[in-house]
């Protein structure tokens, strides 16, 4: 399909080019320490969150202004989520969960800016986020509960004959968690951005451009929703996993 269009209208599709990691200065090789567009957009993400949560609350007024209201809203939203899902003893880990939520939310939304680089569309980034959660939760589970943490896989409410089978399924699903956790986020981000790019490329054809622009607008609206929902899903799943570590015996 793409090759046809290209030959007819000089149309070129590069839907995945927006995800290419490139050095900020020069065109040299990308070493592990090279400042790249990843660095830039991670820095922007951190800066935007700091602007909201630190500068926005600088005055610390009892009757909040607009920015302070948003900061308090974000705080209250995540705080309540952790409290509701993980329980009161999960609140100890609230700062890290808040970090995760704000990071993913802002990285997602910054990625929606034209010409932006979406850090959360990369499996390398989301896999680290997910593995950090997985390892932290697993270690926490064993530290807090000792070997009885393994009881989580041994479903006592099921008939004895079924328990080994269920245990196997539970173990597999437990280890699949970080995979689904990371691929869900990166996949959603990548897909949405790529589709917007494909629609945008069609706008080069005069006949199709109104439809293409409509498509871009519609996808953009959907993406705004997806950006928030994916940040929310990632965070709430983290809370659920944390609850498993804190209270393995449901």
């Amino acid at each position: 399909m793409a090759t046809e269009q290209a030959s007819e209208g000089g149309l070129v599709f590069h839907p995945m080019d927006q995800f290419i990691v490139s050095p900020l200065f020069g065109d040299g090789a990308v070493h592990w320490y090279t400042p790249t567009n990843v660095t830039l957009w991670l820095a922007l993400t951190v800066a935007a969150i700091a602007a909201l949560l630190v500068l926005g609350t600088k005055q610390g007024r009892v009757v909040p202004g607009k920015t302070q209201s948003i900061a308090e809203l974000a705080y209250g939203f995540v705080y309540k989520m952790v409290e509701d899902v993980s329980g009161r003893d999960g609140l100890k880990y609230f700062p890290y969960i808040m970090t995760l939520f704000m990071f993913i939310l802002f990285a997602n939304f910054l990625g929606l800016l034209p010409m932006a680089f979406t850090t959360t569309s990369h499996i390398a980034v989301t896999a680290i986020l997910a593995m950090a959660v997985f390892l932290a939760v697993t270690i926490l589970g064993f530290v807090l509960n000792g070997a009885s943490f393994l009881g989580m896989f041994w479903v006592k409410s099921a008939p004895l004959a079924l328990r080994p089978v269920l245990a196997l399924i539970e173990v597999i699903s437990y280890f699949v968690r970080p995979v689904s956790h990371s691929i869900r986020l990166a996949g959603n981000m990548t897909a949405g951005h790529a589709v917007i790019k494909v629609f945008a490329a069609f706008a080069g054809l005069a006949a199709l451009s109104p439809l293409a622009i409509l498509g871009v607008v519609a996808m953009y609206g959907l993406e705004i929703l997806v950006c928030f929902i994916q940040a929310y899903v990632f965070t709430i799943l983290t809370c659920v996993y944390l609850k498993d570590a804190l209270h393995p015996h449901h």
Partner: protein
Amino acid sequence: MAETTHAAAGTAHSAADAVAHGSAATQSAGMPQLEFAHFPNQIFWLVIALGALYYILSRVALPRIASILADRQGRIMDDIAAAEQLKLKAEEAETAYQKALADARAESNRIIAEARAEVQVELDAAIAKADAEIAAKAAESERSINEIRAGAIDSIEAVAKDTAGAIVAAFGTGADDAVVADAVNARLKG
């Protein structure tokens, strides 16, 4: 939510198709996400970014927001307590007012009763005095009426004697005064 995830999964599929076709034309190296050479770079900067973010949030932002929220909560509690106290005060003031009102009413009733009694005493005295005066006046009048009446009877006797004497003289039979007087007296008694 499940619906959007599903929709997003669908778009991911079509995007993958587009990539597959596009790569043939533009000879790109497939998904940049799977460029493993770039992984260390991304991971390195991500860890730094997350570390910085966690530091900022846990040291500055979150304690600050927590203290703002606690301040507000405390302020609200204080205000509610103050309002409660003011309400109690107002209630106290109202009971005091009601008491003062009742007292004043009782006092005024007492004053009215007193005044009424005083007036009654004075009135009674005045009435008694007036009665006595009236009685005195009546007695005096009685007395003067009797005097007048007595006087009148004497006068009538004299006039009757004079008149009778004159009448007798007019008939031309002169009469003794003593006889006329006896005759008149006999008549008057009869």
